[in-house]
């Protein structure tokens, strides 16, 4: 196998890091804004962060769908041969879970925004109005219940993402520092394999 094939493609690497940066910003803004919205002093800033969080979340959705398509059409490089079956299984589960979260988190956020009684439009980076999901003429109480329950799912998925992120980073560092394999470096941009 050539050396080039053992790295992720440039597109996969670019999408990985773009989405990684976006996810970290989403987690940080999401954790901050919920409480900040309740405080008089930070209410306006939090309101604006919410709008920004909506645009970035939809960006994650688009990039993740692109990435899923790319992944399905461009196989990832093989895992190091010395990995145990359990490690291979754990890696597989983690990556599948990431795709589910990268797509599921924005979708649940979109549902919350669409069901919100505030009826705020989503102006995608201020460029155009992103549509709300259809609510099929649901009554106000039903919409409120939907907003509440899907909001809780959104929050749960966010905390799941944090847990998965810790696992993912720890595993990548372990591959690099303990196993001394190329699992981390093959996803790093601007690196030439030695």
């Amino acid at each position, binding site marked *: 196998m050539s050396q080039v094939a053992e790295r992720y493609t440039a597109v996969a690497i670019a999408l990985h890091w773009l989405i990684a940066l976006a996810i970290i910003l989403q987690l940080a803004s999401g954790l901050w804004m919920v409480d900040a919205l309740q405080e008089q002093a930070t209410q306006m800033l939090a*309101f604006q962060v919410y*709008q920004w969080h909506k645009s970035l979340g939809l960006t994650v959705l688009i990039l993740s769908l692109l990435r899923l398509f790319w992944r399905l059409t461009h196989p990832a490089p093989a895992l190091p041969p010395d990995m145990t079956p359990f490690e291979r299984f754990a890696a597989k589960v983690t990556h599948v879970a990431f795709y589910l979260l990268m797509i599921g988190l924005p979708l649940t956020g979109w549902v919350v925004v669409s069901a919100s*009684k*505030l*009826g*705020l*439009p989503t102006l995608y980076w201020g460029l155009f109005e992103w549509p709300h999901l259809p609510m099929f003429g649901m009554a*106000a109480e039903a919409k409120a219940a939907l907003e509440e329950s899907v909001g809780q799912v959104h929050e749960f998925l966010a905390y799941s993402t944090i847990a998965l992120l810790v696992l993912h980073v720890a595993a990548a560092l372990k591959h690099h520092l303990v196993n001394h394999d190329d699992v981390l470096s093959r996803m790093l941009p601007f690196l030439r394999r030695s």
Partner: protein
Amino acid sequence: MRRVFLTLLIMATATLASAGTLWAKAWGVDKAESAITFSGVHAGTPFEGQFKEWTANIEFDPAAPESAVVLVTIETASAETGNGLYNGTLKGADWFNVGTFPQARFEALGAEPDGSGNYMLNGKLTIRDHTVPVAVTFQASETEAKADATVTLQRLEFGMGAESDPQGDWVSLEIPVTVKLVAKPSAK
């Protein structure tokens, strides 16, 4: 139905106006000098806006102020705040609900003079499906009428934001609306 009624009302007043001295004179609004603006506070931050599209039909004779007719029609979808998020929200079902109520209107019949060139219009303001009495003062001579009146509206009286923000946690319950209007008698 409302449109038809409005059109008939406007046609009727226009017809009466063209009858000239029989009825009060028609006045034309100087749009460059006139504006209908509103303001409020959202999340602790003041905002301002104005209606870009509105028309005013004014029949007024200083010699017979009791026969005055003032009809102002405002296109609710033309509310412009300079903030796309606010503009979009204002059009929504819980605010102006522009799909169902495309127009707001102010109607006043008869003006009360105070003897020093000032007049009081006791009119009715209809936004959505709520009508509230509103009084506006203006000054008028034979050649010019001017209003610069601010009326502080309670948005809940019109059912605006009743579902999303009934306590005023986000958007102030009081919305001052300022009508700045300059009108001159239409040329015969």
